[in-house]
């Protein structure tokens, strides 16, 4: 007997062997570069769109949730809304008419006295008017509110101070400007210590607030019948009550419009987070009692937050399904091409078998090729998918978040697709009879 038996000699799969098979696979794929590229496009687009859409969705939902959180998840916000029926009446008639609607001081008192777990109540009157700094003018909302507004709404003072209880009791003419107002009124100098004029009254600027998120402005604009400017200034509620009374007059072409609204906005703070939903329910019931018409709205940020999270979850499920389908289609595309490739390379398979390749060597060769294809598609897809969110952020000014696991997962799945859809063509190749394969033209 010969010293080395070639049949039983170890021919297992070593790393070096795998490396050579990979190199061989690259060579074979490179021979048909264009075809290889077209083959993986399905995977490329699948992976790329999943990563990009996840990043955009994640960014949007993060931003929405952040904005909702700035409203305060322990808060319940009540807003006065102009009832729709009365709007029609004013549209028809041209005589002067006083409209009365919205949340009243009685409502606030009732909520505070009857509902347990309510700690602070933050009322606000909102008056739309022009603010002047000599000749500079800004269309803004004058918000009459209470000194504890900043803590309640998680809205901090950036410079100076907020007005105090003393300002409130003394009905002083002080104001705190929203950050959005400053560039228009005081482009060069600091507004602190200066006076601005609203109507016939002058207010001393004692502070400037921090800027607020985009969605908050959009959200608050819904409460007012007129479109919000997003520019707000804060004045003690007592001062506003004294200056403006309770009837607001507004001149319009051909008609006078007057509204009587006691409170435009009330924020109710709930003592503990798990009480929020119950208190919100109680508040809604309390308001229903006192109002014949639905001239108010109740916004529960926590509810919004939960809804935003639900939407984000649904979005992810839909995305996941789209991803699964596109990767499935991509995988079928690859399998199709690999089957064609196996038929086309029947002769090569015959030659390799004649030269000593076992069935599993042929399987390995074709499987490696398929995985290389889908893996390359996955890498291209990941690169594009990571690049697209940056472009979106840059051009559309949208927040995008690429979670670290999404490229990994997408790449892993695309490689898995290669294995799953590569097995059948590889087995087809390996099952060929060497004699038949060699005769193949």
């Amino acid at each position, binding site marked *: 007997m010969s010293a080395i038996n070639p049949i039983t000699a170890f021919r297992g799969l070593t790393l070096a062997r795998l490396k050579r098979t990979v190199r061989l696979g690259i060579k074979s794929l490179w021979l048909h570069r264009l075809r290889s590229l077209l083959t993986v496009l399905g995977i490329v687009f699948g992976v790329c769109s999943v990563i990009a859409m996840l990043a955009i969705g994640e960014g949007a939902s993060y931003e929405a949730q952040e904005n909702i959180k700035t409203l305060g998840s322990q808060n319940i916000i009540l807003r006065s809304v102009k009832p729709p029926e009365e709007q029609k009446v004013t549209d028809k008639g041209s005589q002067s008419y006083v409209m009365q609607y919205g949340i009243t001081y009685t409502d606030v008192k009732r909520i505070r006295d009857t509902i347990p777990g309510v700690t602070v109540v933050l009322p606000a009157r909102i008056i739309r008017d022009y603010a002047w700094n000599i000749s500079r003018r800004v269309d803004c909302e004058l918000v009459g509110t209470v000194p504890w507004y900043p803590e309640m709404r998680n809205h901090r003072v950036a410079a100076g101070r907020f007005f105090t209880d003393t300002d409130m009791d003394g009905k002083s003419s002080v104001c705190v400007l929203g950050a959005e107002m400053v560039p228009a009124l005081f482009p060069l100098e600091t507004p602190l210590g200066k006076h601005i004029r609203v109507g016939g009254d002058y207010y001393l600027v004692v502070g400037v607030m921090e800027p607020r998120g985009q969605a908050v402005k959009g959200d608050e604009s819904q409460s007012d019948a007129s479109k919000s400017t997003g520019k707000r200034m804060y004045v003690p509620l007592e001062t506003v009550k004294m200056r403006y009374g309770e009837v607001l007059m507004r001149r319009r072409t051909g008609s006078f419009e007057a509204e009587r609204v006691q409170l435009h906005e009330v924020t109710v703070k709930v003592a503990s987070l798990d009480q929020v939903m119950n208190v919100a329910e109680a508040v809604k019931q309390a308001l229903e009692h006192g109002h014949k018409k639905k001239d108010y709205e109740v916004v529960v940020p926590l509810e919004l937050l939960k809804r935003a999270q639900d939407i984000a979850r649904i979005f992810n499920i839909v995305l996941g399904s789209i991803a699964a389908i596109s990767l499935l289609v991509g995988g079928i595309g690859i399998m199709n091409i690999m089957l064609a490739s196996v038929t086309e390379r029947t002769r090569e398979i015959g030659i*390799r078998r004649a030269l000593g390749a076992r069935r599993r060597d042929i399987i390995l060769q074709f499987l490696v090729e398929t995985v290389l294809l889908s893996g390359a598609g996955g890498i291209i897809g990941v690169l594009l998918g990571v690049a697209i969110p940056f472009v979106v952020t840059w051009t559309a000014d949208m927040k995008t978040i690429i979670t670290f696991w999404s490229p990994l997962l997408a790449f892993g799945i695309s490689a898995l697709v290669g294995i799953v859809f590569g097995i059948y063509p590889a087995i087809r190749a390996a099952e060929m009879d060497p004699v038949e394969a060699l005769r193949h033209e």
Partner: protein
Amino acid sequence: MATRIVQFDNVRKHYQMGPVTVEALRGVSFGIEAGDYISIMGPSGCGKSTLLNLLGCLDRPTSGRFLLGEEDVSQMDDDALSAVRGARLGFVFQSYNLIQQLSVVENIEVPLYYQGRPEDESRERARELAARVGLESRMEHKPFELSGGQQQRVAIARALVNDPLVILADEPTGNLDSTSGAEILNLFDDLNQQGKTLIMVTHDTSVAKHSRRSIRLRDGHLESDVRH
């Protein structure tokens, strides 16, 4: 006398074509000693290629015994047959059968690759053999850049790379003009002179003259077996 490396005992090969059984080989017996140079001849369809495929362990006989070296090949499983082909046999085909995406040296290396030999050692040996068949200046060329005669020389180098017990050639000059064909036959003569065992299927009596022994087949039977 030289050692017997091939023993065929009453080998039959049948092909099932639906209800019809084609008897390609109907009981063939012969032996081959190391260092011999054999041509297999006969009319078309007599079973020459079938016989060569059995010799080449590409197929198993329907019945009968086939010993290659000391091993009974007729009962081996697919993996074992692959191993025998890779380690003990060399093939030269009529249509060269090189792998198109591989260079000359890489084509020559293939049998060693499937034996799991180290890469640098294989490369060294492949270069050696390319030089031996006169292709030292074509090492990195692809098959389509070579003439038919050159391609067939690559195939011969590939058949030699694993130092096989037997080299099997199915009409190796069938696709070549007379000059290239003569070159290939001279190469075969040289190899046989150096002690290689060659088995060659051919239609051409002038080609068969290069061999030392001629086996003639007719209708799946051994018709004649002459030494010259």
